[in-house]
């Protein structure tokens, strides 16, 4: 998964080599390992955030020895970032179009309430309640997109407004009532499926493969859903015309319009798709807590934007990648978890999170610079 808009460009540059009688070309045999690493990084800039992540992991394996560096703990981190990562994928789509969506969190909650309440409280079969929840998310996103394009308003204002609106609808529909795990298990266990845990080691062992390095890992289906969502959106962004239009619409909307792209249609598509992804996040959220908590998700907006920005996507649109967002979410997850395990006082944990975020992005930028 490399980032096409900025990444693949580096793939095979070569004025030097291709021009007959052109300027000196590089001798491949002559390059040292650092130079080689540099070229690899330059060629695959998406790998850079992984390096930052790695550095984070190494630091915490010293800061919280024993506890942090365990498959079980890594599994936890993965489970903890799943929701923000999925919302981050939705947010990435929006931010690529130079927009911002302050309503992702509340769309997720609203969708989870629709799924859960319709199924558990109103007794509608889950086969209907679940698609209804997905539809709710899609509809919310669609409304956002419609207002952004048809009224030509800044996405910040639009989603700030719909944040209030969807939030009110959420309070109204949910009556602020939590749906308990036990009740849900009874009427709609399917909604909890994403929380089901499985052990990859056992899974492969059953297939006759003894993959020792998988021992201790405990995943849930939510993580798989997250990977699937990310893969699909990665595909859409990089391999379809719609994806190209998303990048172009965010890069320079006027140019895109002049070049013949229906930017309005693209934007509506993006917002609706983002809403739908939020509804999938709702499903994962239900799985994670077993029930529905209508008060959750209030910081999800900022968290998802954070994951996107740490993942290297520009808030000005047109540049960025899904993989970056996943890694961005993981980086924050690793920091939070590592600090929690370190036993630092809560106050200084906050302090450290702030410092680490800045340091992480600094290292990222620095590697980018020396590799170009």
């Amino acid at each position, binding site marked *: 998964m490399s980032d*096409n*808009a*900025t990444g*693949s*460009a580096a*793939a*095979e*540059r*070569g*004025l030097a*080599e*291709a*021009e007959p009688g052109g300027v000196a070309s590089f001798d491949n045999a002559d390059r040292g390992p650092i130079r080689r690493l540099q070229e690899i990084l330059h060629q695959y800039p998406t790998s850079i955030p992984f390096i930052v992540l790695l550095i984070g992991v190494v630091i915490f394996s010293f800061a919280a020895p024993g506890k942090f560096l365990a498959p079980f703990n890594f599994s936890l981190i993965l489970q903890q970032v799943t929701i923000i990562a999925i919302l981050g994928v939705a947010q990435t789509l929006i931010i690529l179009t130079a927009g911002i969506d302050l309503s992702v969190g509340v769309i997720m909650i609203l969708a989870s309430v629709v799924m859960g309440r319709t199924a558990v409280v109103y007794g509608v079969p889950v086969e209907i309640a679940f698609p209804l929840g997905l539809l709710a998310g899609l509809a919310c996103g669609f409304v956002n997109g419609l207002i952004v394009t048809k009224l030509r308003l800044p996405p910040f204002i639009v989603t700030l407004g719909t944040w209030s609106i969807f939030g009110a609808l959420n309070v109204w529909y949910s009556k602020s009532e939590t749906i308990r795990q036990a009740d849900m298990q009874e009427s709609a266990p399917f909604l909890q499926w994403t929380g089901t845990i499985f052990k990859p080691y056992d899974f492969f062992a059953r297939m006759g493969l003894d993959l020792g390095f998988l021992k201790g890992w405990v995943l849930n289906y939510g993580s798989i859903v997250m990977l699937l969502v990310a893969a699909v959106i990665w*595909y859409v962004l990089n*391999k*379809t*015309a*719609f994806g*190209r*239009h998303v*990048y*172009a619409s965010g*890069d*320079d909307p*006027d*140019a*895109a*319009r*002049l*070049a*013949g*792209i*229906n930017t309005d249609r693209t934007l509506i598509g993006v917002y609706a798709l983002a809403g739908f992804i939020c509804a999938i996040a709702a499903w994962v959220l239900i799985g994670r807590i077993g029930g529905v908590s209508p008060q959750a998700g209030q910081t999800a907006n900022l968290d998802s934007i954070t994951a996107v920005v740490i993942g290297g996507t520009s808030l000005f649109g*047109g*540049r960025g990648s899904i993989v970056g967002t996943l890694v961005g979410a993981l980086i924050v997850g690793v920091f939070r978890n590592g600090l929690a395990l370190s036993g630092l006082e809560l106050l200084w944990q906050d302090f450290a999170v702030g410092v680490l975020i800045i340091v992480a992005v600094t290292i990222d930028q620095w590697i980018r610079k020396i590799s170009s």
Partner: protein
Amino acid sequence: MVVPALQARGLNKRYGRVVALDNADFDLMPNEILAVIGDNGAGKSTLIKALTGAVSPDHGEIWLNGEPVAFKSPIEARNLGIETVYQNLALSPALSIADNMFLGREKRREDFFGRMFRTLDKTYMQKMARQKLTELGLLTIQNINQPVETLSGGQRQGVAVARAAAFGSRVVIMDEPTAALGVKESRKVLETILRLKERGLPIVLISHNMPHVFEVADRIHIHRLGKRIAVINPKRHTMSDAVAIMTGAMAPPADEAA
């Protein structure tokens, strides 16, 4: 009488109190090369933007092959086969050359993936993009996946021209296509324009380069202060005449609409 390929009457466009178009008329005959010349700020770019839906005129009428049209966006014009090189090029900086060339008309793969999952045929698009650029003599571009923002000024212009030349099916409009191009590359663009004409297309060429204009144009539309003040035949007038009319130093010839 021949029906003009693209025609406009009484186009007006005001920006605040700046009048960019002041009852401008326009006629493009089938299969002709029409040059549009005029001072800086005369309103040439605004004229073609109004013609292609990039700007909506305050009033005025437009006909495409005799049919009245009112484009609300450049997409509509493009869907009818009008291809334009805008003066600001309309390229997406972060996208690659190939992506830009096929922006808005990407080609899907013809196999199962293309039909089922709408997978793009990147290989094809890259090949075509490279070929079009080579035709324009832009050999220094080697990597078709380079983002457009890393190209030199002339290379960028080459991409925009190649795009219009490749896809124009009814009318091709070029707003100063050779401004940033080198000598050799400019020649290629002129050749391309002549080749488009051979294919039967009418072409609008806006240019400040009088030798170029007089070399290829069948007729010359002279724009001044927001309106067409004359249409001259390059064979019957010299370059100095054209410049004199354009700058107001000489009265426009009475009527010469051929």
